[in-house]
């Protein structure tokens, strides 16, 4: 099969442009490259890694302190108030779950669409998904006034025979996150089985052989194994795509299934899905650059990967811009005073600098991706990706702040003033994410070896 047919309608790369570059054009070279961080750690200077671990552990400790303090004092330590009862916890949750979208997206949707370039990025994107979704799952619990009773959201048998209230979007959300995290773990692990087997086979110490061997679940690489694997993987991918879409649709419904101006909009579910993919891709681009640099994977993660991700981000930026414009238009067209005044408040109210920054980061800055030179400049892609992530975070917090600060009754309009604990918890969660990622890169092959081997084989054949 040729590249062109493999990628469907996608513009095929020129003959000399491949998704891998020569040092990695042999299956064994791929194995060597990918398993080196795990098995030949003496070849590496781990100084940067250790610095990273130190910094992220410190931030994780900060997060732990924040959580302990939160549990001791109550959520009054945050800036939430009687009017803006939601704050950073919900915004962080939505942001992290958005990040957590891209891994599954790359793995499942691109797999189903036969975008084979995904092979070199999907492993760490899936890991990113898992970690981000886990962190996202923590925030709704921390957000609760009485977090010890979070399990009341589950339909467990109890003497009061009280069940959750199924009309609440938060219950839908609870199930969406839970199923998504469970799915992510399974999908990620299934994809790892052949690679664990490869590591087992290459391991030099009995302990590693035993551990990786156990995790490989007796994989022998037989045709039967491969067939079962392919069926399972594809099936999971088929499950994954609707899950990804439903997850973020439900997150959007947390807002859309309400009565508040600026929230009760039917556009929210799709707009949240796109937003999530957008921020997720931006995060993948950043992590890809780091992995590429940190583990010398220039041969596997090429400039072309960045270029294609930049194109996706550009499309998403345009969709986001259209969504914003649609919101403004419907507010005007609907003629509801509260909707119109909310839009005016977005542009001119107390949070306008943040709102302008959000428009710049999410809509204006990514327009640079129209230019091939920018798309092929990894640094530029990373800078814009970071901007996108900042913009998406601003969007999450402003959805909450603007609506709750400026809803129906002006007598209760107030502003949100974040406290130090809001900021520390947010940066702490970034630290935890980084720590999990840093640990991941030393325990698990960061690139899917078997899929890249196949890619290489196909490219060599093509």
């Amino acid at each position: 099969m040729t590249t062109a047919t493999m990628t469907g309608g996608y513009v095929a790369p020129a003959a000399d442009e491949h998704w891998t570059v020569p040092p990695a054009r042999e299956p064994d070279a791929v194995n060597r490259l990918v398993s080196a961080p795990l098995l030949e750690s003496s070849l590496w200077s781990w100084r940067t890694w250790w610095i990273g671990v130190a910094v992220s552990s410190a931030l994780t400790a900060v997060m732990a302190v924040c959580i302990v303090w939160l549990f001791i004092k109550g959520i009054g330590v945050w800036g939430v108030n009687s009017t803006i009862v939601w704050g950073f916890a919900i915004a962080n949750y939505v942001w992290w779950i958005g990040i957590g979208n891209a891994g599954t997206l790359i793995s499942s949707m691109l797999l189903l669409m036969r975008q084979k370039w995904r092979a070199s990025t999907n492993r760490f994107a899936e890991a990113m998904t898992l970690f981000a979704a886990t962190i996202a799952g923590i925030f709704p619990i921390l957000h609760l006034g009485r977090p010890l009773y979070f399990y009341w959201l589950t339909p467990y048998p109890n003497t009061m025979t009280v069940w959750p209230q199924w009309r609440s979007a938060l219950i839908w959300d609870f199930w969406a996150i839970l199923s998504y995290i469970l799915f992510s773990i399974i999908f990620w692990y299934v994809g790892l089985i052949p690679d664990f087997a490869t590591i087992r086979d290459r391991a030099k110490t009995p302990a590693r052989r035993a551990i990786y061997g156990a995790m490989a679940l007796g994989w022998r690489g037989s045709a039967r194994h491969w067939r079962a694997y392919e069926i399972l993987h594809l099936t999971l991918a088929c499950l994954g795509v609707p899950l990804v879409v439903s997850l973020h649709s439900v997150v959007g419904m947390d807002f859309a299934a309400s009565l508040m101006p600026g929230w009760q909009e039917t556009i929210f579910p799709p707009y949240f899905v796109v937003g999530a993919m957008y921020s997720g891709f931006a995060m993948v681009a950043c992590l890809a650059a780091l992995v590429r640099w940190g583990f010398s994977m220039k041969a596997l993660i090429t400039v072309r990967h960045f270029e294609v991700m930049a194109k996706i981000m550009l499309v998403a930026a345009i969709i986001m811009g259209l969504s914003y414009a649609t919101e403004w238009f419907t507010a005007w067209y609907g003629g509801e005073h509260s909707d119109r005044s909310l839009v005016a408040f977005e542009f001119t109210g107390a949070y306008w600098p943040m709102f302008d920054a959000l428009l710049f980061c999410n809509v204006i800055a990514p327009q640079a991706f129209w230019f091939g030179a920018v798309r092929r400049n990894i640094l530029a892609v990373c800078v814009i990706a970071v901007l996108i992530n900042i913009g998406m975070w601003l969007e999450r917090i402003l959805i909450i702040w603007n609506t709750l600060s400026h809803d129906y009754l002006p007598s209760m309009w107030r502003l949100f003033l974040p406290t130090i604990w809001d900021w520390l918890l947010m940066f702490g969660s970034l630290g935890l994410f980084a720590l999990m990622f840093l640990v991941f890169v030393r325990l698990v092959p960061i690139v899917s070896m078997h899929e890249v081997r196949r890619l290489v084989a196909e490219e060599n054949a093509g």
Partner: protein
Amino acid sequence: MTERRHGDVTLRHHHPPCSALDRRAALKLFASGAALALASCGRPAEEVVPYVEMPERLIPGVPLRFATALPLGGYGRGVIVTSMEGRPIKVEGNPRHPASLGSTDVFAEASVLSLYDPDRSKAPRRGTEIPDWSAFEAALLARLGQERKRQGEDLAILTARITSPTLTRQIAAMQKSMPQAKWHRADPIEDDAVRSGATLAFGRTLTALPRFADARVALMLDADPIGPGPAQIRFARDVTGARQLRPADDFLRIYTVEPSWTLTGALADHRIALRPEFIRNVALVIARELGATVPHAELPEGVLNFTRAAAADLKSRPGRAIVLAGPRQPTEVHALCHWINGSLRAPVDFIEPVDAVSAGHMDSLRTLAADIHSGATQTLIIIDTNPAYEAPPQIELAEAIAAVPFSVHLGPYDDETAARCTWHLPLSHPLESWSDLRAFDGTANIVQPLIRPLYDTRTAHELIALLGSAVAPSSHDIVRANWQAQTGTADFTAWWRQTLQDGVVANSATPKIATPAAKLPQIAPAVASNSFTLTLAPDPAVWDGRMANNAWLQECPKPFTKEVWGNAVQMSPADGKRLDLVDGDLIRVSAGQAPLEVPVILLDGQPDGVIAATLGYGRPKAGGIGNGVGVDFYRLRTAGSPWATAGIEVTRTGRNQNILRTQHYFALEGEAEELQPRLRLAELAQGHALLRPVDADPPTLYPPHDYDTYKWAMVIDTSACIGCNACVVACQAENNVPVVGPAEIAMGRDMHWLRIDDYIVDGRPGFSLVPCMHCEHAPCEPVCPVAASIHDSEGLNVQVYNRCVGTRFCESNCPYKVRRFNFFGYADGEEYGDLGADIMKAVFNPNVTVRGRGVMEKCTYCVQRISAARSEAEKENRTIRDGEVITACQSACPTRAISFGDLNNRDASVNTLRREPHAYALLGNLGTRPRTTYLARISNPNPDLSS
């Protein structure tokens, strides 16, 4: 206390034989120990006897109600206090009392909190010693021995305004035994000009009591009859009663000219802001229009038009028109108003003053200071007043008191004055005391205690009695003996019981006297001045400062500014612009002496050149709650003109301070008219109904609820809401609503279940009360993931605290934002200040759950009162009658602006009110179908002035 007996009873009952403990005995011991710990009382040393039969009337869990009275500015307001197993927990009005009419005010509602205030002084103090009362009695006796020899020549007593017949008589008796002893009476909320104005007009001091019920046009010259004060409830009821829906010529129209916002000004149909000194010119113009030969007075064009229109209106309604001047106006203006009222045959009653002391308040302070300086006063007894804090600084009374060789302070707190006295003695709270009080109209009632004194305190009666004899009788005996002597009834015991039960001494109002002829006073018009004038007023929350340690009052949002925990000065936006100030900027205000630094609030409707402030703040020794809150404007008070200080210099400091307020963070964008519709009486008469009737609900997909029992609803008449806050504090007291403190307010958190929204339309503020709407399609219900916010069978939107996990989705989705979240354990271990003190738990209403940290709470329509009524009705096998359930806010409301009842009862008043043409549902267009609905604010402007 009853609990103490309870605890002991349990203990004795279970006292085990100390032999072998079996399992049952051990469990019993454990249970009795736990019961003892719960009762948190120690076992007395003496033998106690358990009651074999229940004491009469005491059924555990069933509250008892006693009539008594609470003083404000010395005058009594009759109240009925609910006592729960010996603890007074809630104050309600006494319908038989003319100064209560069944309603209360903020101060009365908050008084139960002051009773349990842990900062109250608990024992006598001399310097740093804590001797007991007998030591004081010995010291006093020794001192009195010398005094008696000199006929009390250098003895002086200083009190605030006293209306208690018994105490007045006691003081008179003491003065008889020591003829040279002096009694000085000085209340910081003084009325010298009011009294001297009457003296000037009539030749003798009389008190004028307007009959608003008979008035159809009223002009208020800086008068605020419905503002805070001892007659507030009565006047507010009369004024709003005369403004019920009726033909326009039968509807009381109010014109107000005032130098700062008052509740009367907010209610008025026409209001003009004017410098206080110019208000006399308005009075002069009115008088000239009525034919008086008074000097011509200049007024700006707009004010002149207003005055002429008002004068024409007044003139056209002889016998039904009334002009009132406020205590801030000078003597001559009061006298002139008496003349005007005379020529209008105004509906005003005259009585002999209830406060019989003829000397002026400020004169009394001056005399006392002079006496101390000259050595004429060597022994000073200060009873329940705080002159060291309240006296104008030019009198230098604080320094003088410290120089008195033997000074005694009897007061509820070890305050600024106590610090300067030789002795400080703790005073019993009115709810712990036997006494008597007279209302503003002279009606007397007996003050009976609800609880034995919590600490080693005494009443003023007991202290005055000590001055007469070594062995003082109890205040009960003193008060009873006095009334026995007064009434002369044969069956005094029956009279006494009946009077205590009624809470009012029958037919004791001061008799009205025939309207005397008023003399036209000599009065010169005012001329323009360029400097700032500072107007002062008693504070709507802490009155004269004596309530400063009451956290409910400190956290009660003031009308107009919605400020809490402070008293920023109000300034006109034009002045603010001129001085380059924004809200919260600190300004330096001085009148020659040491300047004060105060934050400023720019308020539309404040006249240029006038800054307005309230008294009662900036206290250094109020207690843990009130210390250092706000700024002390007594420092800028002058004895000559206590309510307005002219020649004030205002400079900006360039610094800013966050003003703590619960509203007004944002400028309005034109929503106000929709959210608080206002109608003119004429429009209503022409059939202009409101935009949407209450029941014009948008369509829904949900099936209708079936309410087969009750269908509770509330209707709030915004025309009658004067913004007095009585309901807000009543709700707090009834529903155990915690105080959050200034730091939390600064974070934008508050816990009041009930708020008064203050919207400004055409420059006029209007108040509307916002409790939970109890929506039939409540947006809070479907969003709660754990079903903690649910709909009950009677249509109440209830919050199950135990089930709440604190997602706060309900408050996010509440368009009215009436839900309140316990971000901290405001009542659950993280209380503000000392509100978590053990004694403070006594104020809790046991019928309402005290909410823990992390749960949402909100207005329940006083569901505990509905339950009580339901069980009463079920006992009698009937349904609850209309008017049987009275919510706490409804009960407090002086103007009866709140109605509550069952919509399934066709005759219920709420049903009628919901069908009124000016009924509306707040945000009814959202389809929430609120059970709380409103009646639009009706005004009756003069067509000649409407343009």
